[in-house]
């Protein structure tokens, strides 16, 4: 399917809006993870607004596509998207990480639209394998999408899950690797290199699509390649920039797990008002 220039422009505007919400949410919360939320904005915006088959007013609709944020620390992004789709009112976003809030510091099923909790890294791809197996058992056509962090794939369980997904020929499963090249302690290649990452997934029997994770045309085309796949699970290796969209956060490791101050928030929002 071809997307018009206008549609791509609309997605870009949506992405800016999502980024603004992420910044505002984190300033309100006073803690959280901006870097890895901002890096996956385009991929997940494209998924939520162009691909996802869901009914925000019927969260348990059996045919819904499943999305699981295995990198649970990127939940500000998830919450912004869910509120935009109408799963809950946008005001809820300002309660992120507060006592008794429906928006926990890492995803929790009390949030409408969250399928399974996450936060302890390495488990989400297994969860997605379970969802994909259930879809096949029930003869339902839904797809399962799983967002993985790049540091996360250092967890051994990810590879147990990868092995089982291809063994069970789960072509209804699409993993997305948000490859922003940073983890908490620094650059991935300096902490614990995950390269050659494409070869690893290929060796585990996956269909691998490598893209620029901030380019909507490439993102949408990757999802279409996944939809056409009938044999194997798919992983989209998305090269991204940590902190993308806010000049002073881009590729700055410090913003993995530190929320912007009010002052930094103002500067960030100013940047995001423009057409960047």
């Amino acid at each position, binding site marked *: 399917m071809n997307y018009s220039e206008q549609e791509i422009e609309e997605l870009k505007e949506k992405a800016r809006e999502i980024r603004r919400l992420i910044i505002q949410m984190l300033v309100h919360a006073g803690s959280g993870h901006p870097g890895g939320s901002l890096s996956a904005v385009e991929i997940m915006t494209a998924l939520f607004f162009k691909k996802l088959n869901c009914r925000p007013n019927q969260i348990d609709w059996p045919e819904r596509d499943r999305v699981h944020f295995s990198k649970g620390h990127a939940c500000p992004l998830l919450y912004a998207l869910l509120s935009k789709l109408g799963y809950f009112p946008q005001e809820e976003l300002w309660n992120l990480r507060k006592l008794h809030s429906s928006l926990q510091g890492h995803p929790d099923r009390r949030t409408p639209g969250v399928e*399974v909790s996450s936060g302890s890294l390495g488990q989400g791809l*297994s*969860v997605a394998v379970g969802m994909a*197996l259930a879809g096949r*058992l029930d003869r339902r056509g839904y797809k399962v999408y799983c967002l993985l962090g790049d540091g996360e794939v250092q967890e051994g369980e990810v590879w147990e899950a990868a092995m089982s997904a291809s063994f069970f020929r789960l072509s209804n499963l699409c993993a997305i690797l948000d490859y922003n090249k940073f983890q908490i302690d620094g650059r991935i290649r300096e902490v614990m290199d995950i390269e050659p990452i494409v070869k690893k997934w290929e060796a585990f029997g996956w269909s691998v699509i490598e893209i620029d994770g901030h380019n909507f045309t490439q993102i949408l085309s990757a999802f279409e390649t996944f939809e056409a796949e009938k044999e194997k699970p798919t992983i989209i290796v998305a090269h991204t920039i940590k902190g993308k969209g806010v000049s002073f956060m881009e590729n700055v490791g410090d913003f993995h797990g530190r929320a912007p101050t009010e002052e930094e928030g103002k500067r960030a929002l100013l940047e995001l008002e423009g057409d960047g």
Partner: protein
Amino acid sequence: MQYQRDVYGRTLVEIGRENRDVVVLDADLSSSTRTSFFAKEFPERFFNMGVAEQNMMAVAAGLASCGKIVFVSTFALFATGRAWDQIRNTICYNNFDVKIVATHSGISVGADGASHQALEDIALMRVIPQMKVIVPADSIQTRQAVLSAVKERGPVYIRLGRPKVEDLEERRFEIGKANVLREGEDVSIIACGVMVKHSLEAAKILSREGIQARVVNMSTIKPIDEKIVLECARQTKGVVTAEEHSIIGGLGGAVSEVIAEFAPGKRVKRVGVKDKFGQSGEPAELMREYGLGKEDIVEAAREICRS
């Protein structure tokens, strides 16, 4: 004498026939855990996950999130130890319908030795919110526990052993309810699993010495039947706990917590493995070596009555 796991395997098939949402996972031990019975009857609803317990537990959570009732089996050590974080964060936190039925618990695993003898699993499972912990005493209770687990909302851990066990005459079973198998006013013995049988034998020996022991089958460790624990503590001189598990954190720990809080001053003696690893040997000789014989229960009860 029957294997609890044979009964488990047959019961699973029974459940599988009645409920199409029941799915079973195993980690390359299906012939030992007897999930192979289910696999043979319902191959499309059985998944052998290979030697990968962490993946198995989180896959179970994913299946449960889509409405499946998932039975997960492997040896107790690998189920609870290897995959604890997955059980805590992805199964219990979400209160999913995942029923972990682990076999080969305790020292009676025998010749395989310490690496395969789970003596900490009750403690590991009991501490997790929303998890229920059941230790059936025989094959009859095994069947009842498995049937109850299907009806029970949320995660359940069922602990089974490796050797054959003798059936008790007891027929009652309800999650969260202990059963008094023998009345007595001098001392109480609260036991679970194979130690229930030993406790009944111990009570007979004590009776010949003029000590009347009450014997309780505490088949649910969590939620523990506080009422019966406190009746035992208040109506007799003290309580002996007996379990094929570490004396730390299991049945003895659970009973001690209740008594320390609500019946302070009452004595508790814990029969179990005394903070040690096991070793290879025949099950019966290991039970004696590690202080899990009926004589050990008798001695603990005598001590309470002397004090």
